[in-house]
């Protein structure tokens, strides 16, 4: 059908909301609660109101569906008045500490305030405007229900900044099924938080921090610690960067999603003062070699099946907290970050004759969950803390901006080769299906003993939440599955428990489309942004000279000189871990 928006005709389907049609056609509409990952919208924030010929008053464009004969006006006097007063009311309830706020310059509320000229605390009397008693009353009422949570390693919350858009509640409940948050209380005391204000105790995937429009929920900030390490002349700062980070880092500096910015990333880290910059993709290749070996062992021993990937710490936590009966199915392999880190403090430190005491190992990651993983008691193997600190992409970008380092003006640099050579298979870890594809490239060649003709395994690629495939390998029908988002993982676990499905190997990622949709990635994101990021990843894999993990020359050397062979005692000690039943 056709509908009229601002006196022009546009195509619309019966299920389209006015907002969807506007978005498709580049018509600007302000929103605070609508989000492409959280459909259908509920019309909670009232920012997207428009005038329509189908109703007397203003209607919310995120809920109103298109219909024959609909005529919409998006910039009338009433619409603009509604937006302005709405923002002024929100601004009055907001902490207003922009200068020191983590989201300064990248905050949705701030951008809207700028767009609609909201600059004063119109609804809050200024200091000295009231008698002292009343003034105290006012402050007390405003902040009587503030929830501040800095008790966990990954996610920081401060409800002084909250606009009650409910995105976090929805994503945690609908996408991740964890439901750690709820809307609590009523009236002006309405607050989004945990029950009884207990410290957050979830799977730390950080999706809430990725959808929050303000600084109410953010990644825990470790930049101060990082700066301190960089400034310590006694310490060597050794950094590793995750596969997906090089495809999203550019967005923080104006590049299109999916732009391959590896050279700029390394250059920026070097400019900050990092002594060495290594590539987590090498760790990913290492993970594949160990994990493929483990899979083949399980095939020989007929179980336990399915084997689940273990590189996503949120997925691990999810199993430990809600489905501990599946712990034996998890691969014992650590994640790439946690495989590379102990090698830094043992193999590499020994080779370079550096005292591991001096090394501060930092990783730049797409997720908040890695901060949790780094401090797991069971994870350390080098004799020290393997990963000393984890910074998300957002934190790194924030630090660079603070230090006025613009990667765009830097000359591209390469990873330090000692632990910086990687393969296309490892790069694929960045997106959902990548671990599976990388593992298949190695496992199939190992099992058949023959070189792969075509290295691509398209059947495990894709954007859908749950995919499966059957791959014939030397008479064995290898049944594999790939899921992302915990709700799909939950469905899979439930069907496994009922005996409805049967797989050998399953890749699980907690975040939408895998790490490129991680909780610590640049925001705002959404299905379109993630699609572009995936395209970047696949293009890079295609363009790399080596595309199978077991062909990584540095890894071959490390096994020869240090680890021995996959699954060796040394490998078990450094590269494998155990899990804990954390069900309450």
């Amino acid at each position: 059908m056709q509908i009229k928006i601002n006196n022009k005709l546009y195509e619309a389907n019966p299920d389209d909301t006015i907002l969807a049609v506007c978005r498709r056609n580049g018509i600007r509409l302000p929103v605070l609660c609508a989000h492409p990952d959280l459909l259908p919208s509920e019309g909670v924030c009232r920012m997207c109101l428009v005038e329509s010929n189908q109703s007397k008053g203003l209607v919310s464009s995120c809920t109103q569906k298109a219909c024959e004969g609909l005529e919409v006006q998006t910039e009338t006097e009433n619409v603009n008045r509604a937006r302005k007063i709405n923002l002024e009311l929100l601004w009055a309830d907001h902490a207003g500490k922009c200068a020191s706020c983590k989201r300064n310059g990248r905050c949705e509320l701030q951008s809207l305030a700028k767009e609609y000229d909201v600059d004063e605390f119109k609804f809050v009397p200024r200091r000295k405007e009231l008698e002292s008693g009343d003034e105290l009353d006012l402050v007390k009422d405003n902040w009587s229900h503030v929830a501040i949570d800095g008790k966990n390693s990954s996610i920081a919350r401060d409800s002084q900044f909250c606009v009650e858009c409910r995105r976090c509640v929805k994503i945690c409940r609908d996408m991740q099924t964890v439901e750690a948050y709820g809307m609590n209380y009523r009236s002006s005391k309405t607050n989004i938080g945990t029950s009884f204000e207990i410290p957050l105790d979830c799977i730390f995937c950080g999706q809430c921090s990725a959808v929050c429009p303000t600084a109410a929920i953010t990644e825990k900030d470790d930049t101060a610690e990082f700066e301190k390490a960089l400034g310590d002349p006694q310490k060597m700062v050794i950094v590793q960067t995750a596969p997906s980070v090089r495809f999203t880092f550019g967005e923080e500096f104006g590049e299109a999603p999916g732009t391959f910015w590896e050279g700029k990333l390394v250059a920026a880290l070097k400019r900050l003062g990092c002594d060495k910059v290594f590539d987590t993709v090498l760790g990913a290749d290492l993970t594949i070699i160990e994990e493929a070996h483990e899979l083949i062992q399980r095939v020989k021993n007929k179980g336990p099946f399915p084997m689940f990937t273990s590189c996503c710490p949120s997925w691990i936590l999810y199993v430990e907290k809600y489905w501990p009966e599946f712990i034996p199915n998890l691969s014992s392999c650590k994640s790439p970050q946690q495989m590379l880190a102990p090698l830094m403090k043992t193999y590499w430190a020994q080779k370079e004759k550096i005292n591991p005491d001096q090394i501060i190992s930092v990783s730049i990651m797409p997720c908040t969950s890695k901060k949790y993983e780094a401090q797991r008691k069971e994870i350390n193997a080098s004799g020290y803390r393997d990963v000393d600190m984890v910074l998300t992409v957002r934190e790194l970008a924030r630090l660079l901006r603070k230090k006025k380092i613009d990667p765009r003006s830097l000359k591209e640099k390469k990873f330090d080769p000692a632990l910086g050579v990687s393969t296309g298979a490892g790069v694929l870890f960045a997106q959902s299906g990548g671990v599976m594809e990388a593992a298949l490239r190695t496992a199939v060649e190992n099992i058949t003993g023959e070189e792969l003709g075509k290295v691509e395994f398209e059947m495990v690629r894709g954007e859908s939440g749950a995919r499966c495939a059957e791959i014939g390998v030397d008479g064995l029908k290898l049944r594999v599955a790939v899921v992302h988002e915990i709700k799909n993982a939950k469905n899979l676990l439930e069907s496994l428990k009922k005996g409805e499905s049967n797989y050998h190997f399953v890749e699980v990622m907690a975040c939408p489309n895998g790490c490129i949709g991680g909780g610590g990635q640049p925001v705002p994101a959404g299905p379109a942004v993630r699609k572009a990021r995936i395209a970047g990843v696949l293009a890079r894999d295609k363009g790399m000279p080596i595309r199978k993990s077991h062909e990584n020359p540095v890894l071959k050397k490390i096994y020869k000189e240090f680890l021995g062979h996959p699954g060796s005692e040394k490998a078990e000690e450094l590269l494998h871990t155990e899990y804990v039943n954390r069900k309450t």
Partner: protein
Amino acid sequence: MNILTKNWDKINPLDINSYIRTGGGYESLRKCIREMNPAQVVDEIEKSGLRGRGGAGFPTGEKWELAANTPAKTKYFICNLDESEPGTYKDRVIAEKNPHQIIEGLLIGAFAVGAKRAFIYINGHYRKQNEILKVALEQAREKEFVGHSVMGSAIDIEIDIFQGAGAYICGEETALINSIEGKRGEPRLKPPYPPVKGLFGKPTVVNNAETLANIPFIIKRGAKIFSQIGAAVSPGTKLFVLEGAVKNRGIHEAPLGTTSQELIYNSLYGGGIESGKEFWFAQIGGASGRLAPAGKLDQPLAYGKSEYTLGCGSIFVVDKSANIKDLLFSWADFFHRESCGKCVPCREGTYRLWEIAKRLKKNNLQKKDIENIEDILWTLSSTTFCPLGNFAAVAWNDAMRMFGREIFNIELGESEFV
């Protein structure tokens, strides 16, 4: 003519037999089950022109027809006795004096739309009335009016009482439905409307208790007779609640179309203003009602398009000795507390209005406050998710227009209050 209160002084609410004997209680139910089919019952209610007595005045027959025509194996019927509008207690009194009127109406309604399960959603504070209803339901069950095989027929209708827990917004039908589903009492988007998709996603009719109390009369005496009482566009009688500075405070049953002038001054009803007091204005429809000055009392009070909507039928007479600032605070305080908190304009707007009202009460108002009142009232009237926001602005809007100058003692300039 008295339809609802007719036999109240003769009926013992704790004895179902007194209801049966006096005026033929449960005969309408018998007529429906034995002589009519559901479609005929719906038709009768439609022809009667009965409209909802909770405040919105929606044609009851239309609601029933919509639910009856929506195909579903499970349907629900809910009696809304949440009654939290300040200034009204008519539903409470019906439950106290003649609970079976409500129960019979509920049963007929459930039969008409095809619902096997019904709820009476009662205000959590109405504990005594809850007990009375429990006894009444038990007795109705013993007589096989409620439960499996009603009056020996193939119809099953189960009634459960559901107590509220202190939330005015739960009087709104979708919020009410949400609270029964174990969710926060926040209103839902409409459409879909409850008769199409309501409780647990099934067709649900939510009717006010007073609306249901009219049903037995309509079935017994017929739609035609009912449609001739009161006003043509909204027939029947209404339980008006008179409070404030009138001589005879309390419940008065009068035909719809009666003017507030009559209700306040006629000796049949209010009997005039309390001696020693002077009429200032009347708030019609509870705390969300408009303020009618002396010149506007001649408008007939009925549902349908009118300048002063009747709402729940509460008429609060305010005399000149009242402190308008206290009243303004009372209204702002109520809506601030009862805002569900879902949408920004209501959650923040009622809060800011409440702060302003607090300062107003202490005579500590700032010039900025006066400018802000206009913006807050506009946004509450135009941008909220549900009507509670609109309700919060009604009385203040009228007060600003009528007494703004006095209240603020300064020139208001070009401000236009809606």
